[in-house]
């Protein structure tokens, strides 16, 4: 009976964590991998690891940071692999709507499609480190210290990467303003 309750608790914990973090982790993978199909694969890998880890750790564990670190390492591994580079060079077509989890708000509608494509394109042009820092700080809204701890950097280094990324994005988009 005790085993059954334990399995049930693990299952509940997994489902709860999945609901709370899947969209966030998937978006991070899309930011760091560029190819949404592969990002989905990596996100699934991350939650497979979560399924195993949820049997070991209790609910009070720092799951958010753990999931982010696992996703970060998985994306780095993919980026390092040679076939990933080859795949990245291939032209890819996919439907944007396939990955949209919700309808854009009126405020989001104000940003034109061309502008969104341009911003994504510029973000993809950032260095991997700048992408990691920018995503954690501005998309995930982590503090500079949390980002530094996650990436094993000093806060000063995080700030430098952040400012360079912001400056690059703004400078490149300067023509539209």
């Amino acid at each position: 009976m005790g085993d059954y309750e334990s399995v049930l608790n693990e299952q509940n914990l997994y489902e709860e964590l999945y609901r709370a973090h899947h969209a966030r982790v998937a978006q991070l993978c899309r930011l760091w991998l560029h190819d949404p199909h592969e990002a989905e694969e990596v996100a699934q890998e991350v939650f497979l690891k979560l399924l195993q880890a949820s049997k070991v750790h209790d609910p009070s564990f720092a799951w958010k940071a753990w999931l982010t670190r696992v996703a970060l390492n998985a994306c780095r591994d993919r980026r390092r692999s040679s076939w990933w580079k080859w795949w990245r060079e291939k032209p890819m077509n996919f439907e944007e709507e396939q990955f949209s989890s919700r309808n854009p708000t009126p405020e989001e509608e104000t940003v034109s499609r061309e502008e969104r494509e341009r911003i994504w394109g510029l973000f993809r042009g950032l260095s991997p480190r700048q992408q990691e820092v920018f995503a954690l700080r501005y998309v995930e809204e982590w503090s500079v210290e949390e980002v530094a701890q996650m990436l094993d950097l000093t806060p000063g280094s995080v700030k430098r990467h952040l400012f360079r990324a912001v400056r690059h994005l703004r400078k490149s988009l300067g023509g539209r303003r």
Partner: protein
Amino acid sequence: MSRHLRDEILWLLHEGEGTSADRAHIEACSSCITRYQQLVRDLKVFRQVLREAPPPLQAAPQPRRKLQIRWVPAAAVMVATLLLVWGQEWLRVLTLPVPPAEARRNQEIAQFLTKELPLVLFSTPDLSTGKLPARTTNFAYLQAALDGGWPSEPCDPARTAECEPDPFSLIP
């Protein structure tokens, strides 16, 4: 207000850092506050866009019709090129001088076909060039038969009055 704040300082202020002098400056300088507000708006747009689904990495393939239109001139050029090459080769073959040995052989073949072969196949003498004797007698037939020339036909007295008596009738 002789010097405006650098972009880095504006960004640090957005991050909750910067000195009190910088804050005092930005509150007093309309140019810097405008630039700061623009920075805040830009970061808001970046956040908003990067939280959405990414756009396609490449535009969708062109419709098939456009591809066909592109291939039509290419096909036309290819056909024209092939025709040109073929025509040139054809003209070159026509203008080539015939080698003497080949010409002589062709002449021999033509002579054989037009003169010697009909003589072998059609051994009857040419009636257009031959000339029948004006007056045919049995003797003449006999002589012709002996010479291997005209066929020896007996003279029919009913057909011609000038027919001489058949010499063969004398032979028992």
